[in-house]
């Protein structure tokens, strides 16, 4: 099953929609609740990153019997230093985004903690793609 969701940069009113839809789908498929929790954390963080940092993006979720593969492609500024971006507490979020309680530099570490495999590809001035894989068992 391949699910696809568009995400608009800057539109916090819709942030979490794709995560919520994918959570519902996994519940219907009777996926282990503990696994769903990990998927939801990783996916929400990645979705919010597109909203907070990119111009727009697409979330692709490939659900298979053995697990879920997420690919989040965005058009945006890209990440110049991925290692630094992965450092807990490091953030380039705007003051406005921080005041809402986002942009605390915990997003990418949260994804990493909850994924079985996690890869970032980024091109400065073009965009970023995240590959997140979580196994069901």
């Amino acid at each position, binding site marked *: 099953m391949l699910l696809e969701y568009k995400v608009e940069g800057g539109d*916090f*009113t819709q*942030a*979490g*929609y794709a*995560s*919520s839809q994918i*959570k519902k789908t996994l519940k219907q498929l009777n996926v282990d609740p503990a696994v769903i*929790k990990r998927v*939801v*954390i990783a996916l*929400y*963080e990645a979705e*919010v990153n597109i909203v907070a940092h990119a111009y727009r993006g697409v979330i692709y979720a490939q659900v298979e019997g053995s697990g879920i593969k997420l690919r989040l492609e965005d058009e945006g500024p890209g990440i110049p230093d991925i290692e630094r971006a992965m450092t807990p507490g490091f953030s380039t979020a705007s003051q406005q985004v921080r005041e*809402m*309680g*986002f942009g*605390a530099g*915990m*997003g990418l570490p*949260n994804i990493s*903690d909850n994924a079985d495999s996690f890869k970032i590809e980024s091109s400065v001035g073009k965009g970023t793609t995240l590959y997140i894989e979580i196994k069901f068992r």
Partner: protein
Amino acid sequence: MKVKDVAEKLSLKIFSAPEGLNREVTGGYTSDLLSDVMGHAQEGHIWITLQTHKNIMAVASLKDIAAIILVKGFIPEPETIELSAQEGIPVLGSSSEAFELSGKLYEMLK
């Protein structure tokens, strides 16, 4: 313990989703950072915060939070109330500060 019991004992205002007052409370988490709550709050927790915008409901729903308590007399935005009603997750309020409320809730739940 149910959300209703917490609301009564802490004299909380009920802003929305009274049908969710029967949700079971397993613990609490106090934070104003959404990623912190995403990463560390658990299902059935009561979330104590000063954030009032609708994204708190997205987080509460994704994490299966039992209820949210807004501190220091803060009131939820209209979209927050709307989403709270849709999700059946109550938004409650108190004039107390987060430190005080967290302490009282901790005593009740330990």
